[in-house]
C-alpha cells in the first residue's frame, strides 16, 4: 500500500484529489500551509486514491499519512 505523507508540520490547506481518482508519480495531491507558505505535497507513486485521512484545516505532523493509494495493476 503506497502512502502520501506530510512533508512538513502544518495545516491542511487544500485537498486536490478525491477517492477513486487515479494519480501519477509527481502529481500534487494536497497543499499544506506552514510558516505562512503554501507547500504542495506530491505523490511519489502511481495509484488510485483509496483513502484520505485528513480534511481541510486539520493540523498534521511531518510524516503523518495523508492519503493512501491502491496500486493499479
Amino acid at each position: 500500500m503506497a502512502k502520501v505523507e506530510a512533508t512538513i508540520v502544518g495545516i491542511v490547506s487544500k485537498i486536490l484529489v478525491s477517492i477513486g481518482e487515479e494519480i501519477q508519480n509527481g502529481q500534487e495531491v494536497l497543499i499544506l500551509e506552514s510558516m505562512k507558505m503554501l507547500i504542495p505535497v506530491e505523490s511519489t507513486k502511481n495509484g488510485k486514491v483509496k483513502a484520505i485521512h485528513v480534511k481541510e484545516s486539520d493540523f498534521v505532523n511531518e510524516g503523518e499519512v495523508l492519503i493512501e493509494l491502491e496500486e493499479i495493476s
Partner: protein
Amino acid sequence: MLFEKRESHSLEGSRKMSELNEKSKRLQLGGHSKYHERSAEQGKLFVRKRLELLLDEGSFVEDGLFANSIEEELPADGVITGVGKINGSVVCIMANDSTVKAGSWGKRTVEKIIRIQETAEKLRAPLFYLVDSAGARITDQLEMFPGRRGAGRIFYNQVKLSGVIPQICLLFGPSAAGGAYIPAFCDVVIMVDKNASMYLGSPRMAEMVIGQKVSLEQMGGARMHCSVSGCGDFLAKDEPDAIRIAQLYYSYLQKSNGMDFESSDTLDSLTSIIPKEQNVPFDMKQVIHALVDQNSCLEIKELFAPELITAFGRLEGKSIGIIANQSKIKGGVLFGDSADKAARFITLCDAYQIPLLFLVDVPGFMIGTQVERAGIIRHGAKMIAAMSEATVPKISVIVRKAYGAGLYAMAGPAFEPDCCIALPTAQIAVMGPEAAVNAVYHNQIQALEPEEREPFIQSKRMAYQEDIHIYRLASELIVDVMVEPEDLRNELAKRYDLYSEKQLDFSRRKHPIYPV
C-alpha cells in the same frame, strides 16, 4: 678487456630490466583473477582503469608499486599512490585496490597514504581519494593502527590539509569503520549507487552488538547517505559517472579565466518565473539556470535538504558558489539540515576563493517542538557563523521575501555582503504581514466584534506592507541597489569583476568557538 667488461655489464643490466619489467607488470595486475571477476560482476572497474578514466593520458607517475612485494598476495600493498594531471593541472591520487585483500590497510598501505598526503601538501595539489576498502587488516593492527604513523595520522593530515588543498573522495565500494572518516574529512564525497557504502559498524556487527537486523543499503548505502545523513554529496549511477562528476566538480575549482561562455537564453523569462505573491511556491532552479552561463550549474547535495540549493555555477566563465532558498520544497524554510548544508558549502567556497551568491526567498527558520528539540538554534548559528566569516566577494540578492533570522543567515546587509541587491518583488521584514498583524494586534482583534475584525486586520496589513515596502527600504539605504530581473545577470557579472581584488581579514584570532 675494458670493452668486454662493459658488454657484460650491459647484458646483466638488460636481464635485470626485463626481470624488473616482469615484476612491475605482475604487480600492476593487482590481486587474484577471481577477485577481478567478482568486482566485474558488481559493475566495478579495476583500480587502474579508474585512474585511466580520471587522469590525463600518460600523466601518472606511481610511487610504492613494490610496497610489500615480498608478499606474493599483496601487490602494492593494496593501494596505488602517485601524481598525475587532470585537464592539465597536477593532482595527487590515493586509490584502494579492492582485488588485494579487499583493499584493506596494512602497515605499508597506511605509510603510502600518509606519504601522498605529504606530497600533496608540498605540491599544493588536490588529493583525490578513490576509496574501495574493507578497512584495517586486523592481523597487522599493531603496525598500522595505533602508532605515530598509523592510520590515525591519515585523518590528522586530512584535517590539517582541509581548506589548504581540495580533498575529493570517490567512493566505489565500502568505507568501513575507521575508514569511513576518509570521506568524512574530504570536501566532497561522490558515491556510486548500490556499490558505495559508509558505516562505522557493519550490519553483521550491528546484529551481534546491538541486536539490530538491517541491510547494508539501509545501514550505510549511497542513496541513504546522499539523501538522509548528508555524508554523501553526489549519487553517481555508475563508476564512469562518478569519475565524470569528480572531473566536473574539480573544473569549478580550477582557474577559469578566459573560458568561453554563452549567456542563458531564459533570462527574459525571469519576471514571469517569480510570483508576486510571497506564499506561492516556484522553482528557484529556473532562476539559477537563467542567471549562470549556459550549461554551467553543478548542484551539490542535490538530494539532501533540497529546500536549500547549493550549487557551483559560472558567470562569464568564472566560478561562483550559489546558496538559494527553494520555495518549491518545504516552502524554502530553513531547517537544521539545510543550515548545515549551507554552512559547509560556504566554507568550501570561501576556502578556495570562489565568490558567493545568495538568492534569498526565505520565510525564516522553522519553528515548532520537533526542530527545537533537534537544536535548530545551534544549527542555524553554524550557517550564520560560516556566512559571517566568509571573506570572498559576497553578494545577496533579495529575490522575494527575507524574513526574520532568514535575512541574517542569507547574508543580509548587517553581514557585510559587498552589496545587497533587491528585485522589485523583494520584501524584508521581521515577519510577513499576516503574522506581524496577528502578533502586534492580537488583543485588540480579540476585543473587536467578529464582523469588525477582518476590515481591521486588512487595514493594518496594508499599513504594514507600506512600512516594509522595498522602495522605502532602498530609500533608507538598507538595500544598495534595485534591479529588474532581466538585468540581474549583467549586474552580478560586473560587480563580481569589480570586487575580485577584495581584501578582507575577518579576524586574526586563533579560531572562533564553533557553534556545532
